[in-house]
């Protein structure tokens, strides 16, 4: 008998009588999502900026970077500030990325997280390996809570997807909060009210 059969047999012999999977009906407050999202993300170390379009984003990027910085993005509207250079298939080649700018599918007001699927990333490692992260989010793409978030994701097929809520952080040394553990040191979200692309 294989280990697999052995384990499954032991489980079948020991598992209790079948109980029903509960339906989840959990109330949500859908008012003031932008304000809630902004407040929550700010509390956990992120930054939210309201903008009217990519021009505002470009101006901001210019204000926080200099010519020597490597800036990575697949967003065509930001072409003028993106660093030149050939794309390498190796994720390791992104190690000197100062700033990455990516889009998110939507944001969650209750926890300040944004949902990002693989198709929005040139490499899965990009939002982690960059020193600083900017996320572009359509201001209308906000849900109240995680139940609505998974309703929105539905049965979508993705190879990889992640919720990101703020900068990388740790409090492992005497519970002192430090931003920038292994991932990005900062996370700035641009909430843009106009339809993008």
């Amino acid at each position: 008998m294989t280990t697999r059969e052995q384990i499954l047999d032991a489980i079948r012999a020991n598992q209790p009588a079948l109980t029903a999977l509960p339906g989840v009906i959990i109330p949500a407050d859908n008012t003031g999502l932008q304000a809630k999202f902004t407040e929550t993300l700010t509390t956990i170390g992120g930054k939210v900026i309201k903008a009217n379009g990519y021009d505002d984003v470009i101006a901001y990027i210019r204000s926080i970077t200099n010519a020597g910085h490597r800036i990575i993005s697949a967003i065509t509207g930001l072409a003028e500030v993106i660093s030149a250079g050939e794309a390498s298939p190796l994720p390791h080649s992104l190690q000197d990325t100062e700033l990455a700018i990516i889009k998110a599918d939507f944001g969650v007001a209750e926890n300040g997280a944004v949902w990002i699927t693989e198709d929005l990333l040139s490499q899965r490692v990009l939002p982690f390996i960059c020193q600083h992260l900017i996320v572009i989010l359509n201001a209308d793409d906000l849900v109240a809570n995680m139940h609505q978030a998974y309703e929105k994701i539905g049965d979508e097929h993705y190879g990889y997807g992640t919720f990101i809520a703020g900068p990388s952080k740790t409090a492992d040394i005497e519970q002192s909060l430090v931003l920038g553990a292994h991932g990005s040191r900062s996370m700035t979200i641009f909430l843009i009210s106009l339809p993008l692309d």
Partner: protein
Amino acid sequence: MHTETKDHAELATVFNKDEARVDWHDETLWWIRQKRDKAVNHLPEWELLRETASQIKDNVLSNLAGYLVQFESNAQKNGIIVHWAADAAEHNNIVLGLLHSKGITKMVKSKSMLTEECHLNEHLENNGIEVIDSDLGERIVQLAKEPPSHIVLPCIHKKKEEIGDLFHLHLGTPAGNADPQFLTETARQHLRETFLTRRAALTGVNFAVAETGEFVVCTNEGNADMGAHLADIHIASMGIEKIIPKRKNLGVFLRLLTRSATGQPITTYSSHFSKPREGTEIHIIIVDNGRSKQLGREDFRNSLKCIRCGACMNTCPVYRRSGGHSYHNAISGPIGAILAPNLDMEKYADLPFASTLCGSCSNVCPVKIDIHQQLYKWRQVIVQNGYAPAGKKAAMKLMSLTLSSPAAYHMGGKAGRFVMKYAPFAVNNKLNPWYKQRDMPEPPKESFGEWYAKNRKA
């Protein structure tokens, strides 16, 4: 007191020698418990969430074999390679075999309590594989050659000065620098080099979804993602109980997990792995290691609902004042004390007694495990199986004799009051465990029985 195996009370005595440190440990954990309360009080639906999570986990346990098979099949369709391990040794050998087959001698690992339970690092190191733990707290205890003392906060027992000394010794930071910001930055630089050069990364699994074959890994630091997205092979180790039926169930569990753990609304990163990156492999190892046996123990199977948030530790008056290492088990605190005796009843016979049975653990548990009831039930099972320490057995016998005989009871009470009044040194000494860190109470002049006999006619 001498027992052959390690003993919680004895280890707690060691921890209790430094009273200032105990106070600091106690207050730090209570502060985290208060952060949890604040986060929880923001959600009017909290109790509904807990109840829902508990029922989802009940359903999981009642159809565990079915869900595991469904998960395996969907994961395989996604291109993930699935392995099964009956115990720790088999798990460790699967990991070693995978590394050997790729000619890999260095691996980076993010937090996985299962690999602590299996003593994976030790096994790999004995076989010439270097393992670097990438979670900051885990890296710190790894440098100190200690196990984690808490499942969410691995080095909660360490002062920043001790961490500064460790970094000075191993990472070359200036002596005496204990600034958390500076030490974290040093670890960031040191581990970035590690992430970029390791071809294998191992992570734990927070949730595995039967319906989709994907699994979710939660971190605040981003270390699991840094490891997995830069490696050629990603190995994910999971206990059989990590399964949840549907993707949408994640909504319930991700809302509960970090609010219970640290008071955060969600971890910084909640990553869903469903297919390997092009040219790379994902392997999942599904581990039993005693869990199917626990599933068969009706009184204790609920312990398998645990989502490893650590709330029961932060709130426990015994954990806070005895430290995680006194539990001499990979998982400490109240939940560790009900999981460990399943693995080895004799070795962990002391743990269910390391509790006041106050029930605070059950009150904060996000999946409503009846932790304190199980602690009480384990005590009975342990005594019935003959694993109670000799001293405790003798004391219980004497107590049972005294309480079943009114004459012995009255005499015992009189003798006790007499001794405490006229010969306090006979009880105020280190032979009396009650006297440790406490004074004996003032003896009453008479018992209630004596008082009643005198006053009933008046």
